[in-house]
């Protein structure tokens, strides 16, 4: 009897560790993988091939511009693409993606159903004008080095909330190294506080 007890005492930690590791794998790898569904963008758009350092040499504001009333255009419509990609017979490159752009969207004059990484919930009001023009904040502070990106990252959407993973942050632990790693309410508040704009942490400044 005593010997049996000793034996189970001796090996109890094995089960503890095995269970712990199992639970950690479920919690940190399996559950997050199940929670987010992956989607590809309809077209592989390369910011690097359009941006300031490319042959096209466009600035962010050329496509992501402000309207006269101060509202932000967001992701450009197909009409903006057509301004350069005018003729299907005369493509600007030999890439398959440009061919796809012509056949699927420009010729039938259809909008591209882009998946928006930074789409905020309905209750959030974010004026780009106040941040970009009045506070002189560069695009990359919130959006990261988009201009240098050659391919679009995989769009991951939370199956429960329907929000993009870029709101929570790609790091599932919620850790943040750069200002653009997360887009949660606390990240907005953190920046407001850092820049002595505590008044802008009032609820109705960002909520609607």
């Amino acid at each position, binding site marked *: 009897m005593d010997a049996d007890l000793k034996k189970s005492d001796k090996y109890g930690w094995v089960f503890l560790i095995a269970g712990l590791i199992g639970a950690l794998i479920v919690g940190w790898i399996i559950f997050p993988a199940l929670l987010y569904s992956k989607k590809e963008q309809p077209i592989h758009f390369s910011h690097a091939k359009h941006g300031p350092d490319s042959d096209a040499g466009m600035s962010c504001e050329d496509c992501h511009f402000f309207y006269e009333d101060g509202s932000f255009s967001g992701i450009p419509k197909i009409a903006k693409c057509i301004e350069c990609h005018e003729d299907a017979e005369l493509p600007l490159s030999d890439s398959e993606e440009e061919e796809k752009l012509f056949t699927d969207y420009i010729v039938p004059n259809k909008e591209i159903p882009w998946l928006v990484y930074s789409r905020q919930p309905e209750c959030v009001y974010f004026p780009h004008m*106040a941040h970009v023009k009045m506070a002189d904040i560069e695009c990359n502070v919130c959006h990261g080095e988009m201009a240098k990106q050659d391919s679009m990252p995989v769009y991951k959407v939370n199956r429960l909330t329907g929000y993009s993973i870029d709101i929570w942050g790609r790091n599932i632990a919620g850790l943040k190294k750069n200002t653009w790693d997360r887009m949660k309410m606390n990240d907005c508040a953190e920046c407001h506080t850092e820049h002595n704009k505590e008044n802008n942490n009032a609820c*109705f400044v960002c909520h609607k």
Partner: protein
Amino acid sequence: MKKDNNNRGARYGMVIDLDKCTGCGACVAACASENNVPVMHDESDKTRSINWLQIYKITNGKEFPDIEIAYIPRPCMQCDNPPCVPVCPATATKRDPNTGIISQIYTRCIGCRYCMAACPYHARSFNWFDPPFPKGTERSLTTEVSPRMRGVVEKCTFCHHRLMSAKQRAYAEGRRELREDEYIPACAEACPVNAITFGDLNNPKHKISQLIKSKNAFRLLEKLGTEPKVYYLSSKEWVRRMADNYLQGEFESRN
């Protein structure tokens, strides 16, 4: 509290001239369509319907030909000392120090309805159902106003989204200050007799800060100390008395 209220930022307020108000209800309709207030399945059930702005009709209780009536449009009073704010267990409603407007964050509201019990003006409504927007009508929703879900409280926000849009436009023009006419709520814009004046009570240049000095100016249930920012004007004494829940003989017996 009072010091804090008066020294920081704007204090948006409203003056409603009851001598001009005909009770037509244009403000109510404009308010509902501007703020995505839905038409409920059964609008005859007044305990379940949603009203950000309501019109009350009062009479002096006399027989013809002495009878007089008045209409009192009642938005949220945006009190400087709001009874709804301290009772909220979820911090879903706050007084915005920049504007004096009482915010209501629907995603934060837990639907306990303490604020509705606390509000002496019945300015708050509870969503007993998810809002019905029949197919096609969702196209007329205001994009700047988030629709509410079942189980939360909502109320008038002085069309806060219009302030944000006005600010955005001002920024685009390189201004930080708003002009007086740039931000007015939908009700004030819709009023056919211009009974509603809107502006910043802290700004002496705004028309509203002159109007509230009138001897005809009063607020609803003033003696509760809620310090509403919605003022009314009436040249009739019986209207002014009724607005303060005046009971005959009340003040005389106190002395």
